[in-house]
């Protein structure tokens, strides 16, 4: 019973705060061991606070801003980004369900390590650009930095 009350109270302030922009986070789950001349992939953990959603990488309406992960040039060559299957959610402000992400999910970022890459540690820096909404308001697109540590072997 006290646990249920605790959970209920944790949710109450989140309902009040849904007209403020959400703090979306994106963190590399692990340090990447990159072998020269080989491909490597890693998971990026994305977290969206309760009560908010972000457009998926393939929004269902042309006017919506898609989720996008880009990397600044570094020792690793960025490849494909694999997104999870989006959810189709209906909101008060849309006639049709929208393709969105909510809660916690992982992206998979793939890289190729050039054969000539210098051995040693480094950090790839990326930007996850998202545009978030609550059930009745939207927030300007933002980017969150993603830092991926690697070790070229």
């Amino acid at each position: 019973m006290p646990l249920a009350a605790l959970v209920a109270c944790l949710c109450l302030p989140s309902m009040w705060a849904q007209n403020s922009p959400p703090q979306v986070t994106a963190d590399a789950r692990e340090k990447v061991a990159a072998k020269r001349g080989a491909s490597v992939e890693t998971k990026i953990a994305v977290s969206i606070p309760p009560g908010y959603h972000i457009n998926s990488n393939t929004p269902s309406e042309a006017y919506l801003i898609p989720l996008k992960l880009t990397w600044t040039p570094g020792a690793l060559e960025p490849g494909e980004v694999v997104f999870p299957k989006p959810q189709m959610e209906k909101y008060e402000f849309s006639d049709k369900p929208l393709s969105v992400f909510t809660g916690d999910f992982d992206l998979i970022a793939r890289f190729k390590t050039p054969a000539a890459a210098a051995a040693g540690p480094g950090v790839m820096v990326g930007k996850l650009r998202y545009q978030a909404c609550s059930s009745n308001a939207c927030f300007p697109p933002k980017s969150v930095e993603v830092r991926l540590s690697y070790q070229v072997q």
Partner: protein
Amino acid sequence: MTSRIKFARVFRLGGALLVGFVVGCLIYGCSGAKPVKAASLKPDKDRHTAPNFALKDANGKTVRLSDYKGKVVLLDFWATWCGPCKIEIPWFMDFERKHKDQGFSVLGVSMDDDGWDAVKPFVNEIGINYRIMIGNDSTAESYGGIEALPTTFLIDRDGKIAAVHVGLASKSEIENGIEQLLQRPENAPGGAGSVSLPAQYVGAK
């Protein structure tokens, strides 16, 4: 069950509620913008002057809020990528049609980073019948930061903010607010630019 055990359970429950609320506030913030019903107009004494701005419309003409002195203005901050804004815009077009002859105007301030490239096609497609401008950070800052879209201000004939609505509102709530503000005639005492003075200062005996 003894009364002592009952008391201990109630005490634990109360403690959990308090801890949950405090922790929740720490996580989510208790001071986040809260929805404000547009229908509940602020009392006159609580209204602050709407900051003036000078923004270009689609024809390159400068639009100043001060040009609308004496009118009731619905000032809408919006963007083309904002779904809830797209619900409200047809309502605002309807309000403009219905109330423009009573001294009412809608002004739309787009917060699109891509400016007219994004906004003009949308305005033309929808056939928006009120003036649209491209906003900037300083205008948004002067109106409190505009973190969420749509954000709609109802400005009275004295140029003061009578209501603010953050997020998708109900059409009837906004229209009720407009109609209340329009009840004061354009040139009524206490209207635009006038100052209420005690009777002795205006010659009354």
